[in-house]
């Protein structure tokens, strides 16, 4: 960068800075004088609580008005300027309040929704224990021909212990699985060692062994059928199954 361009550049920066500062210091226009106060107009509000009921239940309709001399609600008639009333409509209803006063007329509405009663056997939408177990308890993965729990699986097993400790009524099975490469009988023995290793980690941490069943599937029930390392790794695991 030669000297001339440097000077031009500096000038431009300075000009921009000045403009920016100038914008900040722009003077605020004085507020306009307040308008003369209008004649006292009525105010009105109406509400219903709760705003949804089942057919046969009741709700409380409340209203408040000011500067009103004549207050009425559609379907109810003339009412006090401020008050409340229990309502038991059989269908959904819109309550329309009209407040009249010397300053004019004000209206307000509120709606009460009436629903049909629920079927007797309502389905709860909260997740079951089995769903929670499946969502929270993570399988433990193993190295080839190994049954010791490797370092990168410690976080998973700690999280499993936490959940299992918090849900002390859940019993479960740990399935030992192997990849497809080895021999049937040896893999069943290896799967047994894997399931036992996971169980042992849990019981060492204080989980009651009577809650845990183990079973080996060897390579009899693979999760993934392809012949590559990604798939083999999927199949080398201790798999948690909720016990009904």
């Amino acid at each position: 960068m030669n000297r001339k361009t440097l000077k031009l550049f500096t000038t431009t920066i300075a000009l921009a800075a000045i403009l920016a500062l100038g914008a900040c210091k722009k003077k605020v226009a004085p507020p306009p004088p307040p308008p003369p106060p209008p004649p006292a107009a009525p105010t009105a509000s109406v509400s219903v609580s709760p705003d949804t009921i089942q057919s046969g239940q009741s709700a409380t309709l409340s209203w408040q008005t000011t500067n009103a001399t004549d207050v009425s609600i559609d379907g109810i008639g003339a009412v006090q300027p401020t008050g409340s009333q229990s309502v038991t409509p059989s269908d959904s209803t819109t309550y329309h309040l009209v407040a009249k006063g010397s300053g004019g007329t004000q209206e307000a509405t509120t709606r009460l929704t009436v629903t049909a009663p629920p079927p007797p056997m309502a389905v709860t939408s909260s997740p079951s224990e089995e769903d929670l177990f499946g969502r929270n308890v993570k399988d433990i993965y193993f190295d080839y021909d190994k049954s010791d729990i490797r370092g990168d699986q410690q976080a998973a097993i700690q999280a499993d212990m936490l959940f299992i400790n918090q849900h002390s009524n859940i019993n479960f099975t740990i399935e030992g699985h192997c990849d497809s490469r080895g021999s049937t009988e040896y893999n069943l023995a290896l799967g047994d060692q894997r399931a036992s290793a996971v169980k042992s980690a849990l019981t060492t941490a204080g989980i009651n062994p009577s809650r845990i069943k183990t079973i080996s599937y060897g390579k009899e029930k693979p999760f993934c059928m392809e012949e590559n390392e990604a798939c083999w790794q999927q199949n080398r695991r201790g798999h948690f199954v909720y016990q009904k």
Partner: protein
Amino acid sequence: MSYGAEVCPPAQAASNRMDDISDDDKTQKNTARITLRPAPAGARLLTVFSTLLLLALLAAPCLAQDWVRTGSGLGIEKVRLAVPDFKPSNSDPQNAALLKTFNDTLWNDLDNSGVVELVSKSFYPLQTPGLPAEVTFGIWNSPPPNAAMMAFGNLGVAAGKVTVQGWLYDVKNTASPQVLGKQYADTASDDATRVIAHKFADEIIYRLGGGIPGIAESKIFFVSDRNGHKEIWMMDYDGSNQRQLTHQGSISLSPRVSPDGSRVAFSSLTKSGWDILMYSTDLNRLVSFPHFGGTNLSPAWSPDGARLALSSSRGGHSEIYICDSSGGGLHAMTTGRGPDVSPVWNRKTGAQIAFVSGSTGLPQVYTMEADGTNQQRVTDQGYAVSPSWSPNGQFLTLAWTRKYGPGEPGSSDIYLMDIASKQWVQLTHDGGRNDFPSWSPDGRHIVFQSSRSGKEEIWEMLADGTKLHQLTFTGRNSQPNWSWK
């Protein structure tokens, strides 16, 4: 040496060869040392080995039977045997179908036996004999057939019974040709006819194969998933007559038939886990066997049928246990950390057990005395499983992936190891995963599972790796176990 002189009446053969026992025995040990070497042998070496192997396999049982060293020629120069199709003995319409079954079965039995060379049917004259009077020796004992022996006969159905007459002739000994003459009768069914063919084939193999009983009536037990679940099945040794034994509806594995053939022990996934179950082939149903707890796998019979070895994790780790044949007196033979599985007894002595252990990493084959002492590792590297002891107690077969691990393209092949010297030879070379070898009762054949056809199926070969052929084709079939007789 001509075969006519060699095979004649068995009694004469016996007396001839009794004298040779000591010499041949020495030769054999020497040659075994030469050919079993720990490097893959070339084709020539394999051929030499194969013949010597057959000799080796023949040797021990022969000595035990105390009457024959079957001539060193048998393995190298097989008897040329002509087997013209049996002929109908009457005009019953059922004859044609049963003759086809009989002729096919007899031919396959003899062809698979490994002890004869069948003369191709294209060399046969147009007129073939169905009765002794119809044999024209000059045509059969000179080229093109140039047969040393001929098996022939006839079959006829009458009143719902099939009758088969069969002869074995030494066609070079025109003065006294008959080696064997047999007549069989049974109900006129395909199955019964097949059994007759097996029996007749066994008679021939017994006479031409050095006095070792044939295997044509032996059975192979195996696992098949063709009906949805892995269940225990059985079949004739040639793959015919396949039928389902168990209906557990879960996973059943590792069938092992008892030496007397009356029971099949296997491992099955029950409600409580992997248990040893016992199937009676006499009662055609399960019989009771105790529940041990833990994962119980791979049962194996002692040669006297009195005990079972198995793998159990009831004490925490998978170890080899022994119990009596009813499941009593269970006690552990091994201790340690690695999984121990797949025990098998020395079939001849019952004094040793081979098994698989992962105690040093990848699984290796070990041997120990039947009381658990003197544990020795016999494989030096790779992934070695599924040992099976030969009937003469001299060899182990195993499934071995010698080069194993990331980037190693090794495949699991069947190997044969001389248990005394730990020298080995590779028997399968043709790809696929090969596993679970099991010996035929005569020590001449090995049945195994292989994925070479694209999926797990059961294959059979001679114990030198030749005459490979597939026995099962439907579903996935695995873990074959050959009956003891």
